[in-house]
């Protein structure tokens, strides 16, 4: 979690005092918003085998608006920093950016409870931060430094945190794990729901359908979230999928299509999904239609299978941050100054973390052979040279 912003802090404090005393009408000061809440219409959901969908309008408090804006801005900024670090050759290997898709994660996280869990694929930087890992924890994992959330040993695709079962590198391989985690929720009766995320590319992997089947067969509290950003690597959805109605592809698993560019829609849909799963009805598929501005990974310029105009058009008309900003400003939930303050604070926090992610040392070379086993029976790890084996190290505490 990023540091609480001064303006948001003020707001939180003010909300604890009686409503009458709250600065609801303060047109004299641009520091404070003028309205305490507003109701927004949501683009209609498409439903598959469901009688009733999520609410089509939602109320947002000024406080919620500020928090969500901060998260959206933070995720965008983290990815900008990641892209730059990659271009500077400080991030090596793979790097998949989330820019354009922020509303999916931010809206979902806003509706999730602490008991819920998440497992996703490799476009995971933003999710990791939302699940509680510091910006430094994310960025220095990307740069492979010891302050990284996986000690720099996982890298861009393998970020982990509490109730966050990772970025996973193999397309679709996380889906059955999500079903297993959901069974654990059910078995422990903790009321938690597992959000199992995958992309439109993974939507055609066989194991996803195996996971759907098991989840429905045993009515597991699992929400399969298809982040449809339009392209599975370099192939558009129309060229990869016989049916692009991903919300209906669970067949016997009911589904919802959600405007994944609208953070209010993704929040409402997630609230609905939690209620649905907790009522014992089993799994749900949520297709979040969204867009990624960058290429699939850093080695893909992202312009050979789509036009620059297309990307530009989305940026101008559907950008999740710009559109949310316009909404909350026009309804006077927040003031331009408040947003500017958030932007400055986010920039400062990410810049500081970026600096540190470049200067932190890597873990020692001895961790090459650390944590391969819980209890290494051989003590030594064999390498290429028979006379020079390496010691196995127990780095993480054993419990």
């Amino acid at each position, binding site marked *: 979690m990023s540091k609480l912003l001064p303006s948001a802090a003020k707001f939180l404090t003010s909300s604890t005092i009686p409503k009458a005393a709250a600065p609801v009408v303060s047109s004299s000061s641009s520091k404070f918003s003028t309205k305490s809440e507003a109701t927004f219409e949501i683009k209609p959901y498409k439903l598959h085998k469901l009688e009733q969908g999520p609410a089509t309008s939602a109320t947002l408090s000024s406080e919620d608006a500020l928090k969500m804006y901060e998260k959206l801005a933070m995720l965008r900024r983290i990815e900008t920093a990641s892209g730059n670090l990659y271009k500077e050759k400080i991030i090596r290997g793979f790097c998949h950016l989330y820019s354009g898709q922020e509303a999916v994660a931010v809206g979902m996280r806003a509706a999730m409870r602490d008991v819920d*869990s998440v*497992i996703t694929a490799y476009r995971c930087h933003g999710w990791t931060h939302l699940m509680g890992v510091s910006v430094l924890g994310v960025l220095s994992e990307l740069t492979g430094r010891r302050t*990284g*959330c*996986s*000690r*720099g*040993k*996982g890298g861009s695709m*393998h970020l*982990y945190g509490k109730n966050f*079962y*990772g970025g*996973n*590198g*193999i397309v679709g*391989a*996380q*889906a*059955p*794990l*999500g*079903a*297993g*985690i959901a*069974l*654990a*929720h059910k*078995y422990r009766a903790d009321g938690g729901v597992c959000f199992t995320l995958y992309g439109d590319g993974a939507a055609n992997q*066989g*194991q996803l359908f*195996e*996971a759907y*089947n*098991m989840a429905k*067969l045993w009515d597991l509290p699992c929400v399969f979230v298809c982040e449809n950003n339009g392209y599975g690597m370099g192939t558009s959805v129309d060229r990869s999928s016989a049916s692009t109605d991903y919300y209906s592809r669970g067949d016997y698993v009911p589904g919802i299509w959600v405007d994944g560019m609208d953070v209010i829609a993704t929040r409402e849909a997630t609230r609905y999904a939690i209620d649905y799963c907790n009522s014992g009805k089993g799994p749900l598929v949520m297709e979040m239609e969204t867009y990624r501005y960058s290429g699939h990974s850093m080695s893909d310029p992202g312009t050979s299978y789509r036009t620059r105009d297309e990307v530009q058009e989305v940026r101008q008309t559907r950008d999740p941050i710009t559109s949310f900003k316009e909404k909350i400003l026009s309804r006077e939930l927040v003031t331009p100054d408040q947003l500017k303050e958030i932007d400055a604070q986010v920039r400062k926090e990410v810049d500081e973390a970026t600096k540190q992610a470049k200067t932190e040392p890597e873990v020692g070379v001895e961790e090459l052979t*650390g*944590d*391969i*086993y*819980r*209890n290494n*029976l*051989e*003590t*030594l*790890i064999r390498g290429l040279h028979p006379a020079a084996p390496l010691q196995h190290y127990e*780095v*993480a*505490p*054993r419990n």
Partner: protein
Amino acid sequence: MASLLTQKSLVIGKLTKYVNDCAKRLSSHFIYYPDNEKPVSGETTKMNMMQAINNAMDITLRDDPTAVLFGEDVGFGGVFRCALGLQDKYGKDRVFNTPLCEQGIAGFGIGLATAGATAIAEIQFADYIFPAFDQLVNEAAKARYRSGGQFECGALTVRAPCGAVGHGGLYHSQSPEAYFAHTPGLRVVVPRGPIAAKGLLLVCIRERDPCIFLEPKILYRSAAEEVPVEDYTLPLGKAQLLREGTSATLVGWGTQVHVLLEVAQMAEDQLGLTVDVIDLQSILPWDEDTEECFLHLEAPVSRVAGWDAPFPHVFEPFYLPDRWRCFAQLNKLLHY
């Protein structure tokens, strides 16, 4: 024309007879040498390997409330009946059937184990484990390492029947341990009989790293021993010296151990020589101390194995490293 036909059918008849004879020979391509040494003292009861495995899972489900057993058709015991009666005893929420989807079973088991349950997954045949190969090699084996030790799925044990039975053919006879043997993060274990199976399965289930437990399926019923009734484990990563000698060392695992024990007897009877017989038991990791036998070589190591061919159905007797092939190779070695 008629005579030609007769001749042809004669040839076919001869061939059929020959193949049948081979098949007969197959069903006893080894003699089972029961274990006489007990790992623990106390009450024993006669069990075949299927019953010993059943007993190990029974103990686990009884003593570990988080333990769950699942796989294709395990509800009624599985095709080899190793889970017989366990669903009745522990309920459908702990012993349950999965759909036919090995990759899903493995991933599901990894997730379940990662979230804190003891997951025992049965893959119906080791030959079916390949759809799950990605999950086991890329996900299970690397979970601890790639999360910097934050997450692991050590409570996962994948059981799978492996090896030849005489008629399995291409997809019901394979021994995939070599593929997994090159995967840091996994443990690979193959027992040679009921006593070993019970002790090794229990240690695999309790081991905090994911284990692949391959059960030579021909031993399920043909191998019977006096197995200790109580809970016991055998050490992982340890080989066992079953017979000591001075002239050569024979190393094997699973069913092949019994072939080698017979070869050792043949060497004694026909050549007047004694040889070591070692059961590797743990394919990954190898027993470090036992590996030192390679420091005393007087001849190059020779391997007797199946041919570099898909596991053949009708040619199984020619494919297996039977006692004659092993004995011939031993002779060669002794005259190096």
